């Protein structure tokens, strides 16, 4: 309720609940300069209103003390700002993970788009597995796999699976932003 005149204000002060609310607003600094002035003028001739202000002040101090006791920490207003920072801090790994997942999905899609190369690769893998079964040596598996993906192999169909330029740029940008975020978090 907006106060427009002194008589309006006086009328409000005549009502017990309005009186308490005005006292609360006055103590909390919610009244406008004009309203606060009218409230103080009213207090000059109203000791009970002064008493009400004192009670309100005690009540608010008590609520503050009780809340501090419950929380046992600094007000959330400052914590809120910190939580925003921590949000920024925690978003970059999520972003990076999402980007990596996207890249993986893109590479899988590229691979599946070339069915023939995929089938040949599968057969090559099968050959490798059979050879390892014969040798029973895990090191051999790795060396054989290396041979399959070797760029020098003219039969290697994976070698033609060059990542498109946009994909490489995206990866670079993502890495850069991850580094920047890391630097930012060190500042905090």
């Amino acid at each position, binding site marked *: 309720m907006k106060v427009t005149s002194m008589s309006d204000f006086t009328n409000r002060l005549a009502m017990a*609940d309005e009186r*308490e*609310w005005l006292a*609360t607003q*006055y*103590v*909390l*600094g*919610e009244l406008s300069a004009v309203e606060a002035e009218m409230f*103080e003028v009213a*207090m*000059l*001739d*109203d*000791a009970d209103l*002064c*008493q009400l*202000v*004192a*009670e*309100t*002040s*005690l*009540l*608010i*101090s*008590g*609520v*503050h*003390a*009780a*809340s*501090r*006791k*419950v*929380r046992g920490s600094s*007000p*959330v*207003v400052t914590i809120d700002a910190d939580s925003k920072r921590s949000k920024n801090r925690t978003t970059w790994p999520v972003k990076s993970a999402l980007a990596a997942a996207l890249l993986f999905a893109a590479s899988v899609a590229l691979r599946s788009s070339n069915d023939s190369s995929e089938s040949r690769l599968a057969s090559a893998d099968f050959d490798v597995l059979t050879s390892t079964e014969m040798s029973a040596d895990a090191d051999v598996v790795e060396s054989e796999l290396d041979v399959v993906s070797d760029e020098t192999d003219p039969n290697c169909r994976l070698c033609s699976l060059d990542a498109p330029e946009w994909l490489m740029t995206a990866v670079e940008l993502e890495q850069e932003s991850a580094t920047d975020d890391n630097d930012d978090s060190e500042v905090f």
Partner: protein
Amino acid sequence: MSQSGGHQSNDVPDRDGRSCPPDTQKRLVEATYVGLQRELRAFLRGVLKDVTLADDALQKVAVSAIQSCENVNPETVRGWLFRIALNEARQLQRSQRRDSEIRQKFSEQVAETQSTWSVQKTDWWTSSGLLKDGFDTIIQKSMSRLPDEHQTVIRLRIYEGLSFAEIAERLGQPLGTVLTWMRRGLSRLREDSGLRDLWTE
């Protein structure tokens, strides 16, 4: 007049340099002041919204009261003390405002001045010396009996210092609803019998 309530010598000068006679009026003023000291301090903190200024004002109230004790009507001494307190508070506010304006004129760091003022304004409810022992526990119990939404609004406004608009935004409620919760919550706290006894003690 000492704040502990003891009677001092009768040579305290008034505004005209005369001494108040050690009559019943003076004793009445002293007794009323001592009995009302906690309320006066709380009142001054509520008006000034600053702990240090309120304590300064309280000292001035004591001096002013003793200096003009001849003029007091015994029937209205309580209101008279509150009036003195309000006048002292307003004088302090005016001088603070003047100082602040002067500082602002001559200082290039206006922002710093403003932030200092706002810190003072939000610091006034520091309770040391104002609350009786266990008072916060009683309030805590009273608070716990309130509906959750009332408790939340009261804490956000008083303890965390958010404006009502910010609280409304945070809770996703209309401003009017938030104001109603605050109003009802505080009203119920006031009505709590435990707190009422503390006021009237």
